[in-house]
């Protein structure tokens, strides 16, 4: 979700400055439908699959649009399969991850914005480097660590790992935001007798809601889609998150129909797609901010 993160160094954008000439070539219109079809067609088949009767998937010829649309699959995944529990687990994990990440990342980001010391750049680059260690590499140690902490198959374990892996980007995003908050505010707060903590908590954080919401959204979407970590350390049905539920409980060995899978898929992607549509504003300004560099 990099697109959104670049939004964070946003000053008001001055779009158009230094734009190179726009020589739109109408030939390009030919490619629009091709591109759109390549992206939308595969998805629409899955999307509409959620509204089909289970046996419609198994009759020839296959259909894209459901013959007799039904909502039964959606009822089924919540009443027979407790997909609601997986969604609820995902919400819980994503919510607490966002909360903890914003708090720890905000604290550090604020300090890094206000405090200049030798080695600061090295620290920030180092954090970025650590974030780039993929979870594929760390998955075995994660399993062992969570196992010895007794956090295997708990949502707590997931929140801890997600938080750690999302703090660096949050620090970068929020530091960028805090840099744009005038230092005069801190100084005024100090004159009023605020401690650093009070300044951060009472003055800076409330002012930083836009930055916090961008960072929070980023972390939320990422935590929502995470797959490998929960697959390995929280695969039990009780703590399964939606992505794992989709893979494991609709996969081989499981007595679940594909129409239910599609219905569940639709429900899983809906929050991120809606969030994404709302965040478009930031994406646009973000791209512009990036462009101005």
């Amino acid at each position, binding site marked *: 979700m990099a697109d959104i993160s670049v939004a964070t160094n946003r000053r008001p954008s001055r779009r158009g400055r230094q734009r190179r000439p726009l020589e739109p070539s109408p030939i390009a219109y030919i490619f629009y439908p091709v591109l759109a079809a390549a992206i939308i067609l595969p998805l629409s088949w899955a999307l509409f699959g959620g509204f089909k009767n289970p046996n419609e998937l198994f009759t020839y010829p296959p259909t894209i649009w459901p013959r007799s649309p039904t909502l039964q699959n959606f009822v089924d995944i919540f009443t027979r399969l407790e997909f609601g529990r997986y969604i609820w687990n995902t919400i819980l994990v994503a919510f607490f991850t966002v909360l903890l990440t914003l708090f720890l990342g905000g604290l550090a980001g604020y300090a890094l914005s206000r405090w200049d010391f030798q080695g600061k750049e090295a620290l920030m680059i180092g954090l970025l480097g650590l974030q780039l260690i993929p979870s594929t590499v760390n998955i075995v140690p994660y399993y062992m660590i969570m196992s010895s902490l007794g956090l295997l198959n708990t949502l707590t374990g997931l929140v801890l790992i997600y938080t750690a892996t999302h703090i660096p980007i949050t620090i970068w995003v929020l530091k960028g935001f805090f840099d744009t908050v005038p230092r005069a505010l801190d100084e005024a707060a100090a004159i009023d007798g605020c401690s650093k903590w009070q300044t951060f908590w009472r003055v800076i954080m409330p002012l930083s809601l836009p930055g916090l919401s961008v960072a929070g959204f980023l972390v939320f979407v990422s935590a929502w889609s995470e797959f490998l970590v929960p697959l390995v350390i929280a695969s*039990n049905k009780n703590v399964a998150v939606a992505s794992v539920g989709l893979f494991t409980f609709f996969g081989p060995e499981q007595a*679940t129909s594909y129409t239910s899978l599609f219905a569940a898929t639709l429900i899983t992607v809906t929050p991120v797609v809606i969030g994404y549509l709302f965040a478009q504003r930031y994406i646009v300004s973000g791209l512009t901010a990036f462009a101005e560099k």
Partner: protein
Amino acid sequence: MLSRIGTIAVAAAFAASPLWIVGQAAALELNVFVPAAYSPSSGFIPGADVFKKLYAEFQKQNPDITLNYEVLDPGPAGLQKLLTVAASNGLPDVTIVDGQWIARLVQSNVLQPLDAVWPESDRADFHPAVIEAETIDGKPFGIMFQTGMRGLVYRPSMLASAGLTEFPATFDAFMAAGKTLKDKGISAEMVPAKANEEPSTMHMLSIFWGLGGKLVDEKGAPVFFEGDNGKYLADVYQMYRDMAAAGVMPASVTTMDENGLKPFFYGGETLAIGFSSSGVKQMWSEMPDLANDLAVAPYPMPEGEKPVTILGGFAYALTAKDPERAAAGWKFIQFMTSPKNMGEVNEVLGALPVRNSIWKDNTFFATNPMMQSYKRMYDGEMQTRPAVPIYNTISSAISAQLAGVISGQVKPVDAVAAARDAVMPEYERQKGR
């Protein structure tokens, strides 16, 4: 973690209050470890409901016992957990274990024998292979409560349209029928043959055992490639190759798991698919017309031998050493494994019974034609997979060769040798522990 802290806090408050004396006199807390799927917190709602109902009933019948259950991982983490809590005196009183774990747990002194409490008469109600699977040194250590069976699932109506009245029992007859079907553009059989998937191996194992093959010797050393065993395994590979070469089975099965075969079956592209009994209820819901048109057949064998059905499932086991707790634990096990309750659970979960009386008395199992065809497999020979750590490696080494064999690129004997070469270094490594 929060809930654990909560429990401790409540326990502390409880201990500090004079009420605890009353509490202690009131009930014995029976701690039970169960996989989520076999507990009131099952993700499958009808399953959760039946366990909720049974637990409440047990509670009502035994007001002096308070039932506490904790969810146990059904995979290796569950086994690790039992071994770990045993070392720190944190064992529950009763646990559900995978049949494959029993030997390990007995070796580590985690399980208590049931010979003194479990009456012979009740044991006689189980399939002998079940008792054998849970018996170590002459003593039973668990009570299996269900099994899944793999076999060739087919539509009798389709069989009839191919001019057959019975599913061919010998491989030659099957191939002959397959060629007739092939001319109509229908494949006779599809078995899952995806590499590193346990079901791929399981479908092969029934035939391999039926021929007389053995995977490991008494000491647990892999012998599937030696002498006759190696020959039998090569025979099984050869059967797969023959079917693929004759067009009786499409070579693309090497990319499919059991669920991947369903569209071919539903769409009428194949007569039979290798499938698990646990998916049958789902089939009925996806294809309602299968409700009265579904049967299962054992795998056709070269000389008409009988294939051996794989037996496998979870079992209730007793871990409490203290006599009072053990007595309460046994009450719970007895309750959950009584013919009536076990039958109810089997029916709801779509699992097959391992008690003769359930097959006889439970209306669903006794009357449903599909279940009756499973009963015929149940009446034959059954066997569990060897409970040795090297089994995982053997299983995936055997299934990994299927793609090469079926496509004709690897000769069956070479596939056996390759599987051996994949297993033995790992076995040596494990033996060195």
